[in-house]
């Protein structure tokens, strides 16, 4: 029984998985490479932080 579909009853027919053509090495490479290219990056490089110099600034928003 395929588990592609999940629910609280047994449907009349099983869901057939599609015979997936295994990705060629080229396709695999391109998919992985694309993932690395996209998306946002945001993090703090802890080593670079200048600690505390603005921390006491109590300026309120406007």
């Amino acid at each position, binding site marked *: 029984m395929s588990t*592609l*579909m999940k629910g609280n009853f047994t449907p*009349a027919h099983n869901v057939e998985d599609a015979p997936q053509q295994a990705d060629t090495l080229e396709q695999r490479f391109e998919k992985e490479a694309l*993932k690395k290219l996209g998306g*946002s990056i945001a993090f*703090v*490089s802890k080593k670079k932080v*200048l600690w*505390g110099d603005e921390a006491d600034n109590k300026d309120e928003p406007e």
Partner: protein
Amino acid sequence: MAKILFVNPVVREEDDPRHVPYGIALLAAIAIRDGHLVQVYDENAWRKGAQVLHSVFNADRWDVIAIGGITTAYASIKAIVQQARQECPNATIVLGGGVLTSLPREMMGFLPEVDVGVIGEGFITFPEILSMIDADARDWASIDGTISRTADGGLFISGQRALLQDLDSLPYPAWDLFPLEEVYFPNSQVLFSEEGMLARRRLDINMSYGCSLVCKYCYHLGIAGDMRYETDENQETQVAFDQPKNYTRSIRYHSPEYVVGLVKYAREKYNIDFVVFLDENLMTMDQYSKRTWMSEICRLWVAAGLQPTCIRDGVEHDEHCTGVHWSGTSHATLCNPEILKIMRNAGCSHLVYGYESFARHVMKTIGKGATPQTNMRSFFWTLEAGIRPIPNQIIGFPNEDFAAIYDNMEAWKKLGIVVKPFFATPYPGSEWFTVYRNRILEQYDGDLESYLLDLGDATRITAVISHNFNAVELLGLRELMLNFDYKRIRAYEQYWRKNHGIQPGEPSTLYRDPVQEVAVTRITQQKLATG
């Protein structure tokens, strides 16, 4: 009892599927609670395409095919509803979620296969639709919160659906109906903190609805009190969201007991080690509850034995740590050092801050209620509490100029921020979509659907709303900013000033208050709706 097939459309195709769709998981749980027969096919998780969808649509005789998602799932939704209509001509196709809510009339036009749309919150509207199907009736117009088709081929928006106030009456999400072991747990990692990186069994939870801020690029899905129904001059109902000087909000949150009860349940049932809180802004809730909500959640978290052992024992986190780490969203002005420390003690590993910009004149125009100073202050408070701040940045705001670019680069350098900013993107439902609608459509030859199809991550450029820079300039400037290439940016600034006739020393901007443009946009919208 109705036989319902939920289909989760593909979103963010370029990445692995990482998030169980929380709204659909709740609606599936509600349908099961009410005694219906429910199946979920998660195409976003499986990504098997039309052949498997064919098998899914023919697996039973479906009374309802329910689909929904955020705006960027539009392309997938379109393909799925077309196939659904062909293969299941008698099923009622129901569409909901942010994609429909922001543009209900347009969406029903683009997707003639859809029978009924659920505008905004689905918690009450969707079960009422199911009851009507059980009663073998199709009088959608009598159900609040719907958009449906009239006999003469028009569209009818029924009364506005009131938001559910007793959120704790909701059942727990039907996580079992999604491929957790097969797809979602293997993709648990969240690369925003060490603890997130080591997460192996993560689930997401939404504990609140709403945000007290009015960021002009933000959309709240019509489930945050952000949506108003207005009657236009043809006496037709139109759905409106944030507009200049016209904002509404409703702040709602689950009780700390519900939240911790749900996490405990997820821990016991699925052995989770990480929770991402999906809430738009945890700090709104904390402030609204007079600083009781978050700290009570944290207290109960520790009392329930969910505190990670690395924190309890004061040792570095590693694979042997037990307990549940978590992350969420914060806000520069609304957080304070005390709550951040309490959150850390309960296992908070990172907090996403939409700092957006470190340029004072830009921040004044975006509705965030923050300044460069509050950004920096919260940044240090968060680090001092032992939590990683995730400092999101955006470029391409309407009044973004060279001064803003330099301010941002200075701040990144000073704070050790490594960031590839998003582009300011006017997603439908946001104030800037309403304000700049004409300008956006001009960039897509007047074709709204092609804009929707172009939308994806805001790391890609789509419609530009900057008054100063075009798409090519924004892309180039972002690249140079990432490399701290002051020299080339300065050189380009000279060229840009010459092009626009702006003297050295004058502000590098062509910006004018866009509110003038709203009047024009409103007229166009009315034409669209009636035409």
